[in-house]
């Protein structure tokens, strides 16, 4: 082992990275490719590549309805997640209050256990309240479930703020609320946006909670995909996958382009 690794020159590392890249990309590429199939049966490589199924997807009410549900849920639940995370992260940072840390733990617990547990909890909860199958159930569930994402990004952003900026603002006559509005918020805004993006993409892709909370009446794209998967493959599912892929790629691409993605994920600040 040792001897083998000793010979691992940069090309060895590169080959290893390339292999992992192929492993990660292969399923995605194949799915994207079969979305161009002409016939209902999936063939690879596709014969007579066509956008036929894209048209089908975009004109099918069931698929578009699922797509719309997913979008509404993702956009609003990410909003809920940020609204929960910002005050908690700020309180922990500004005052290190015990109660705020407890709340951040409650938020973090959602990420600590298999989502199927959370899903059943919600199923029982809404059934008990007699408020079943509503879209707001899913929105709130995803908002809580993914609140750790903005909590983490906002905390990262806050920790980068030099606290003497707050003192400086106070010496220039800023009340605490004005300090928050004129100094903290502008500096932490990019991190709020990044947290929003993460929460949104995760909500878009989440399956089991959406399925159990309101899956029968509010079909999201993943739920609809699994439901049709049980009836066999169709290129429409591949088209749906491509939509997912593009959304994630665009969102993270934008975060990577305009934000400091390495730092958001825990690397040290860029040195320049």
């Amino acid at each position, binding site marked *: 082992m040792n001897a083998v690794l000793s010979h691992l020159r940069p090309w060895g590392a590169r080959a290893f990275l390339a292999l992992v890249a192929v492993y990660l990309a292969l399923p995605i590429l194949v799915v994207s490719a079969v979305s161009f199939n002409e016939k209902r049966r999936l063939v690879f490589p596709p014969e007579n590549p066509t956008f036929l199924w894209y048209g089908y997807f975009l004109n099918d009410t069931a698929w578009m309805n699922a797509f719309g549900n997913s979008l509404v849920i993702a956009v609003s639940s990410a909003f809920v997640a940020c609204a929960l995370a910002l005050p908690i992260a700020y309180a922990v940072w500004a005052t290190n209050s015990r109660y705020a840390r407890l709340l951040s733990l409650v938020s973090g617990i959602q990420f600590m256990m298999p989502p199927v547990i959370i899903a059943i909890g919600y199923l029982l909860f809404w059934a008990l309240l007699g408020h079943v199958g509503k879209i707001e159930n899913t929105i709130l569930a995803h908002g809580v479930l993914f609140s750790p994402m903005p909590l983490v990004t906002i905390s990262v952003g806050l920790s980068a703020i*030099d606290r*003497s900026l707050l003192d400086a603002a106070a010496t220039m006559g800023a009340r605490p609320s004005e300090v928050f509005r004129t100094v903290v918020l502008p500096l932490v805004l990019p991190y709020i946006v990044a947290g929003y993006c993460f929460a949104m993409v995760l909500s878009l892709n989440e399956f089991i909670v959406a399925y159990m909370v309101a899956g029968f009446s509010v079909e999201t794209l993943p739920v609809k995909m699994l439901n049709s998967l049980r009836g066999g493959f169709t290129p429409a599912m591949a088209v749906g996958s491509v939509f997912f892929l593009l959304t994630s790629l665009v969102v993270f691409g934008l975060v990577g382009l305009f934000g400091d993605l390495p730092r958001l994920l825990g690397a040290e600040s860029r040195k320049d």
Partner: protein
Amino acid sequence: MAIDLRIEDVEKLYPGGVRALDKVSLTVPEGALVCFLGPSGCGKTTLLRIVAGLEQASGGRVLHGTRDISQLPTHERGFGMVFQSLALFPHLSVGGNIAYALRLAGVDRGRRDEKVAQLLDLIQLPGIADRPVAKLSGGQRQRVAIARALAQEPRLLLLDEPMSALDAKLRESLQVELRLLQKRLKITTILVTHDQREAMTMADLIVVMNKGAIEQIDTPSRIYAEPASLFVADFIGQTNLIKAEARDGAVIVEGAAIPGVALPANAGRDVTVSIRPESLRLHAATAAPANAIRLNVAFVRNVGSQVEVHLNGGDLHLVGSCSPREWPGFSEGDAVAAELPPAACRVFAGHG
């Protein structure tokens, strides 16, 4: 009546019993520049932050004129402050930083821009209002921070080691510039620093602090010439501390008696003599006066503006200095005699 800043019996206790400030009292006269000087951890920054309202004192009070401001929140004190990190807002331009206090106070845009231009002229950086602060050099950032602190026309200017991030040359020239500006504006100023050269350059009064208490409050020249304690003598400038004995009104150093030295009232048998390197008088061993100490030259350092000589003799290690023109030209290993002029000796009780 002058609006002085009075600090009365201010204490600061941290949980766990750490006493950062121990009943500190002093007055900052209106228009003066007072410097809190001391090693790190002496409480000087804590005291400044209490004056700014950024920290609460555990006891005592702070008076501005006749008004007790101890309970007044920072944002209502109207004191300008320059921070060690400068604390320029990275999301605002130079102009945005300087106009920050004015915008909060509801000053309209035209007057704000006018004031910003005026302050930029004052710090000799006209026309950079639109520049982002990240694009400024260290010296420019420094000046902008000062302009920002002056924008609200503060009744008191607080400077917390504002020049520690600059290189030595720039620091020295900015010290002079800032002092001239302060004199011109006649603005009451407190400067916190651990750099005694900075304190000597800028201050009307220096407050030497150690372990949460004040050691001495005096003008720079008196602090240097007449240190009130062993700590001040050692901390300010370079000095030789020599363990000695007090006997019959004279001080005995290494067997040499120095008569006519002023002894402190509380002096017992053990005393410590402090003498500045430039006050030592060196003679060739052959021409030694009666009350001189015999030593050998261990090392000579000629840095151009002055010559420094290190002397060893038994357990004693002394440093002398003089200008190159007065240098008698000893070399390493030479036997010499060091004379301690009584008027230049400060004697403190105990062996430190």
